[in-house]
């Protein structure tokens, strides 16, 4: 039986070479990589990655010690029941933008959760300037109670200052 998938999360100030060095060490130790999401957040670079075959969480932390020190990374590894080939296709995209303020995500996602939305992918950015920041959020999800429920939830938000749009998604499979 194969090892369980570990989920590795890793954050550090963005600079070239983080991914190459982390994955070089893991490959050298016989690890297999699964799905991963990596991106720049603020001025930091964040990695979330499925890893197996390189031992326990403690083993992986030990393997990565020299890279962690060199790149000043924060590293966290958990053993999980994660599995591959569990993809769920999104059937709705919700896009939100407006002048930034506290509470946008909490208000919008509370309404969406109530309407049966399972969030599959959420990406948000703060554009504009320090004095006039703009908040932009894109959510792809699974509308478990149908798209109409999501549309009603969004209409019921009554957030005049926010632009929220709901786009049904369908996948061409051919």
């Amino acid at each position, binding site marked *: 039986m194969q090892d369980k998938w570990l989920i590795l999360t890793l954050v550090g100030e963005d600079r070239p070479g983080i991914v190459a060095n982390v994955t070089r060490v893991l490959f050298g130790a016989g690890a297999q990589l699964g799905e991963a999401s990596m991106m720049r957040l603020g001025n930091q670079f964040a990695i979330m990655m499925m890893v197996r075959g390189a031992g326990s969480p403690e083993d992986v932390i030990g393997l990565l010690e020299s890279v962690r020190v060199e790149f000043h990374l924060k590293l966290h590894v958990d053993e999980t029941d994660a599995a591959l*080939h569990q*993809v769920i*296709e*999104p*059937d709705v*995209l919700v*896009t939100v933008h407006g002048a930034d303020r506290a509470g946008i995500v909490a208000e919008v996602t509370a309404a969406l959760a109530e309407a049966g939305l399972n969030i599959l*992918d959420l*990406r948000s950015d703060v554009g504009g300037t320090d004095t006039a920041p703009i908040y932009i959020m*894109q959510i792809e999800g699974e509308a478990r109670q149908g798209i109409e429920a999501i549309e009603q939830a969004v209409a019921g938000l009554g957030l005049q200052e926010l632009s929220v*749009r709901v*786009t*049904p*998604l*369908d*996948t*061409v*499979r*051919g």
Partner: protein
Amino acid sequence: MASLEILTYPDERLKTGCEPVETFNPELQSFIDHLIETCSGGPGAVGIAAPQVGVLQRICIVDATRARRPVDNHGHLVLINPEITAWDGFAVGREGCLSVPDYTGKVIRAEKIELKAQDRNGKPCTFTMSGFEARIAQHEVDHLDGILFLDRLVSRHADLKRRTPT
């Protein structure tokens, strides 16, 4: 009628251009019936192309009637020697493929196309397609040229264009 075996990536036959159909004989009719059956059996499939079952000929099925939400369509189409003759506009949309299981990604396609082809009896036909049906046709014609949607992926964070501005 039995479903045909679907080739999966990275089978080289999926990367090979297909030959035009020149003879509309009973053998072709039988193959088309099997191809339709295979498409119907594919989970959520709205189209299929002959190379996906290892037949390197310019034959495909486009069936937008199987879309999850109703869309403009021309019904169940059997397209022989299809050729896209005009493109207009573009949109980002999500695609998957019977030959690439368990993965979907975003691809830019023309929003509206003109397509000419022959039907299963060799009769010439033309279509003006838009939106979802146009996307299926572009996906299938790509198969006939040995191109997969994987070759056309754009950023997973690309926004999906609205059909009509609100």
